[in-house]
């Protein structure tokens, strides 16, 4: 009896491994240490800010509206950075994609 149960379990594992069954849902498995979180958050903020500033700067150069679009996109970049960090810390890491 016991052996039979073990077999069922192993069969289920093997099927899951090969993708025949739906695997149990797992969350994002990124390293969750405090330092890792801190560094990731910093990188996310800075990179969003950099992208915003670059977009604003290029648009300004193209349209000749210096410095207004730069300022607008600076703020947008900051907001996007905060949004990135919010997504990083929100309880469901992939709430956007909703499964």
């Amino acid at each position, binding site marked *: 009896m016991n052996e039979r149960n073990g077999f069922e379990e192993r069969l289920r594992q093997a099927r899951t491994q090969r993708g025949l069954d739906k695997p149990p849902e797992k969350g994002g498995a*990124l390293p969750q240490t405090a330092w890792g979180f801190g560094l990731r958050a910093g990188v996310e903020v800075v990179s969003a800010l950099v992208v915003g500033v670059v977009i604003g700067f290029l648009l300004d150069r193209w349209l000749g509206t210096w410095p207004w679009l730069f300022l607008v996109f600076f703020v947008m970049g900051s907001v996007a950075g905060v*949004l990135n960090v919010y997504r990083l810390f929100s309880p469901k890491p992939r709430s956007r994609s909703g499964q």
Partner: protein
Amino acid sequence: MAVEGKTIDALSQFELSPVLGVVGQAVSFSQSNLFMLIATVLSCGLMLLSARRAQLVPGRLQALGESAYEFIAGMVRDQVGDEGKKYFPFVFSVFMFVLFGNLLGMLPYAFTFTSHIAVTLALACVVFVTVTVIALMRHGMHFFSYFVPEGAPVWLWPIIIPVEIISYFSRVVSLSVRLFANMVAGHVMLKVFATFVVLLGGLGAVGPFVAAMPLAVNVVLVGFELLVAFLQAYVFAILTSIYLHDAVHLH
């Protein structure tokens, strides 16, 4: 090498110089390119060798190749789902390239090509473009609804959509800068403490005893850097799979 006139020169290790003599000079074949080539050959060789002489009870090499394969295959399956299987070769190549780049950099006299923003930015751009093209192919024009969160009032769209677009593009920067900064910081620290060993070692009779301290730090740092080398390759690969998940499932 690092000590030139009793100063700490931690950045010259990242300078490019042509290798392979005249031919390398003519086509600007730097040591960065050389180590990329070595990394590619090594990862291909590892997978070919471990697959060629495959036995039921794996030897060391086969176990290494298979555990690398299983590791990334499991990650892609967990993150992307069953649809992600066809993107496994892409994630696996990126992972192996970054991993070998990071690990080769830990060898003495080796060059860490992942410590150049040009290389990591190119890698991140490849990932970004691939993910975007996959999303466009799977969803067509519907892909652009990714930038419009459900349930947001229409009057907020002019603010939300640019923010979402910036957030989307910031993936390239964060992906590349994370890898680049980690590798540069680690190698600069190693070089600085190695320079301390040389500088303090020359302090007469007490020198060797004092120099043992930065040497001990360096021993710890080498272990730490090996961890970082693996971890950053892992983070690069898992973020690639998370982006693939977003591209495949969209909302």
